């Protein structure tokens, strides 16, 4: 039986999603740097084109199978048995679409705020998005690693060149943290390559079983790379710096897609490759997740900087995602994947909102705001929706995701579930407190007379609002993508089935669907 479903569209869709932005970046290099509007429009057109060409993924995806779809497979480096091997399944398809959407939003939101080295900026954005799409599509470990690392080069520039005052510190911290994790994973990848008989083919690698002690070390080697990217406690400290200093588009890329690469890595590589080690490490992972949820949530309460607060809230939210993933049951994993999308949408949107206001006031201090709802009512209502989604209000996407991950976490460990739930309360605390301080209370004189959002800004945020409500009200559409893949993944770790699922949890699931 064929393990994969080859791409049957007229064009290699996944390659297009990866390389069309790269091609766009190459073409941009040819345009004279003084013609900035041509560069902007060029970048936008390539991003839009990529998005449009990625839509058939959504439409033609076969939701009844766990198999890899839209597969492209060609020999690449025959000397090392490396293939150019792309494909998507229920885990990755939504992330690929999220990537193509994000690149458009990043370009729109930077339209007026990037004033220096405009050409390099849009080239970097396109290259980053292309490389990240590559990460989500690669089915060959070598190819995956190439994209995983190549993404660093443009990202390094985005934070370092167009970032805030402390950007150099932030960018070098970002690079060093990620690089340490990545190279340890590289050692793991090479080790696995020889262990499995010289192959980087992921699907082939996941059919084999490895001795437990080998799995144990490899799990930690891969963990080092993914945990830094997620970021999990205690290697999360690069994220607040990177987020705070990055330009708006950089923060959006970080929040929406880059840190998803870590969680995706766990699902795609760590769990299916090292199921025994994963199972053994579940308590450790749940503990780290819970610490991240609570600790980062508490840290949020004392932040004075808008972006830093949202950055720490990211760490907390990513804790829910890893909690769900390592709960290793269908609610948890599906919730985790859905929450990856949710977090990308919501946090990406919040960073865009901060960027919008930062363009006007050039300050990120919470104390510099107050009563913003008076001069900018439209902005305030946009921000409200995203705040409530971040809090996890029923009806928004945040609720579904958090609920499922908590349900999963609770099923796996009652204590973890209970502790993690307190994170929701802390989350409501700091988000609403932030909203109150910025939008209500006494009107700060610095915000008097600020223009409200313009059309471009609304166009950039409107699709995210739509997603917040769509996922919040009708999540089944998105969850349907995942079921077979998640079931297959859980079969691999042998925890699937009803044994661990309590009756009440299943009943709640029925209600949800």
């Amino acid at each position, binding site marked *: 039986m064929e393990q994969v479903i080859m791409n049957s569209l007229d064009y290699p869709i996944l390659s297009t999603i990866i390389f069309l932005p790269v091609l766009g970046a190459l073409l941009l290099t040819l345009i004279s*740097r003084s013609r900035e509007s041509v560069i902007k429009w060029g970048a936008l057109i390539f991003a839009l084109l990529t998005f449009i060409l990625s839509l058939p993924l959504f439409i033609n995806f076969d939701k009844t199978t766990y198999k890899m779809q839209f597969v492209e497979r060609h020999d*690449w*480096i*025959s*000397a*090392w048995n490396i293939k150019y091997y792309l494909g998507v399944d229920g885990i990755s398809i939504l992330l690929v679409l999220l990537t193509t959407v994000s690149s458009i939003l990043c370009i729109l939101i930077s339209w007026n705020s990037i004033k220096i*080295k405009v050409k*390099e900026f849009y080239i970097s954005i396109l290259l980053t998005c292309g490389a990240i799409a590559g990460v989500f599509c690669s089915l060959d470990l070598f190819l995956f*690693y*190439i994209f995983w*690392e*190549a993404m*660093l*080069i443009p990202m*390094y*520039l985005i934070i*370092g*060149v167009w970032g805030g005052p402390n*950007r*150099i510190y932030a*960018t*070098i911290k970002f*690079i*060093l943290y990620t*690089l*340490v994790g990545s*190279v*340890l994973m*590289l*050692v793991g990848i*090479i*080790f696995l*390559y*020889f262990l499995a008989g010289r192959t980087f083919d992921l699907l082939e690698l996941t059919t084999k079983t490895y001795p437990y002690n080998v799995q144990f070390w490899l799990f930690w080697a891969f963990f080092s790379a993914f945990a830094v990217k997620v970021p999990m406690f205690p290697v999360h400290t690069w994220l607040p710096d990177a987020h705070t200093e990055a330009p708006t588009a950089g923060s959006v890329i970080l929040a929406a897609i880059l840190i998803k690469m870590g969680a995706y890595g766990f699902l795609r590589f760590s769990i299916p490759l090292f199921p025994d080690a994963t199972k053994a490490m579940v308590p450790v992972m749940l503990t780290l997740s819970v610490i991240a949820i609570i600790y980062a949530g508490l840290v949020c309460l004392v932040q004075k900087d808008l972006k830093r607060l949202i950055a720490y809230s990211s760490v907390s939210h990513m804790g829910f995602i890893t909690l769900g993933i390592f709960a290793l049951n269908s609610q948890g994993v599906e919730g985790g994947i859905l929450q990856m999308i949710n977090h990308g949408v919501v946090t990406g949107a919040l960073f865009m909102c901060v960027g919008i206001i930062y363009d006007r006031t050039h300050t990120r201090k919470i104390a510099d705001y107050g009563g913003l709802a008076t001069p900018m009512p439209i902005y305030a209502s946009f921000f409200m929706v995203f705040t409530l989604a971040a809090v996890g209000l029923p009806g928004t996407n945040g609720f579904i995701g958090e609920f499922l991950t908590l349900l999963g976490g609770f099923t796996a460990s009652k204590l973890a579930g209970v502790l993690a739930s307190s994170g929701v309360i802390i989350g409501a605390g700091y988000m609403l407190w932030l909203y109150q301080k910025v939008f209500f209370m006494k009107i700060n004189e610095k915000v008097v007379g600020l223009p409200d959002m313009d059309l471009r800004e609304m166009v950039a945020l409107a699709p995210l609002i739509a997603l917040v409500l769509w996922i919040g009200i009708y999540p089944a559409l998105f969850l349907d993508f995942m079921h077979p893949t998640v079931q297959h993944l859980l079969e691999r770790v042998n925890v699937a089935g009803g044994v661990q699922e309590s009756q009440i949890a299943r009943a709640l699931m029925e209600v949800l669907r």
Partner: protein
Amino acid sequence: MNFPLPNLGPVIPELFMTALALILLLADLFIKKKEAIAALSIVGVGAVAYTLIGSSGVTFGGMFISDGYSTFFKIIFFLNVILSVLISIKYIAIEKVNFGEYYSLILLSTLGMMIMVSAGDLIVLYLGLELMALSTYVLAGFIRHDTKSNEAALKYFLLGAFASAFLLYGISLIYGLTGTTDIKAIALYISEKGLIGNPALSLSMILFAVSFGFKIAAAPFHMWAPDTYEGAPTSITAFMSVGPKAAGFAVLGRVFMIAFVSIKLEWVTVLIPLSILSMAVGNVVALAQTNIKRMLAYSSIAHAGYALIGIIVANSEGLTSMMTYLMIYAFMNIGAFAVVIMLRTEGFKGDSITDYEGLAKTHPFLAALMLIFMFSLTGIPPTAGFIGKLYVFMAAINAGYTWLVLVAVVFSVISAYFYLRIVMYMYMREPKVEVITSQSGTLRIALGVTTVAVLVIGVFPSFLVKLAKAAIAGF
């Protein structure tokens, strides 16, 4: 008495190279335009490279071997000499040392390397090594009016003479033990007479390691490198950070893998500390450098450490990875030096790291190229530097040296800091001094070739790996 002429087929490239160097020396007397000599040398090297085809064989009673292994290294040398000449032409005019001897010396040095890698006998090896070294000493001090250049040459010469003495000592010991200087015969003698464990043999091996360690600039025999690299003309720094290093690795591979193959375990324990120390010293000290040539000198020490892992692995895969690494290193390192040379103009030295501040604003294209070379030297995909490191690491892990690879990757993360500092200066700071780059067509060609090579090998390394594998087949 009948005295048959030995088969000259395998030495034809060397003969042509000798003739070329001598012709250039003579031509220098008549040709006033030195650029013509440079052009002649490039065309000449091209012709010599052509004679490599069909030159394989063994001659002079086994003293001279032309096989895939030597041919692969000779290709590195030809690339090295051509690229170095391309980046020299404008540069030596700026330094006011535009003499024709420069090109002859470069060719003679290359000839020395060619003889080294083809040596089947330790005496021939020594001959080649001396020819290479003496020519390079002169080249390092080629800017006569510059004290730093003089210092570079003197230091290189004194320490180089030491290294040669060590080599001779090692050769004499091994000759005393085995009664031969033929590399294959030594191996046979050692295994037949059961010399394994003989302290004199170990001492001789250590002396070889010291001498070759000097040539490849491996710590702790690297002391000459920073000063010499800094003081020497930049084009020569580029030349000798690739050529003599590759030649050193080639003879290290041949002597250790053939003559000393039966005491593998011993020399592996000698080379492992050398490798780790090189990576440590190179990468850590480079963090503190303010001169880009010195920084690249320390980086070259570190890269010697990575490539040494290929030898430590001690199998054909290891050797192949080492060869691939050196080929890749040639491109990315000469590329980086080409950018350094581009900043050198009349009255502006351009070798301080701060001279790179804001380069992305004033010279975006040049800055982008330097960015590629720096990321490649760090070993980040999709550049060739990643492929080089990956292959060495793969060979090492396959042979069970996972711990050594872990050490290497940690040091390569450290190296990211100083390579990316150059990128940071170029892209994230404002220009303080106005930098005018040296405009030269040949320099552009060299930059173009190295950039394309770095990117193409980074994405399609198969042909290079296959070439190296084929080269090692008859080893």
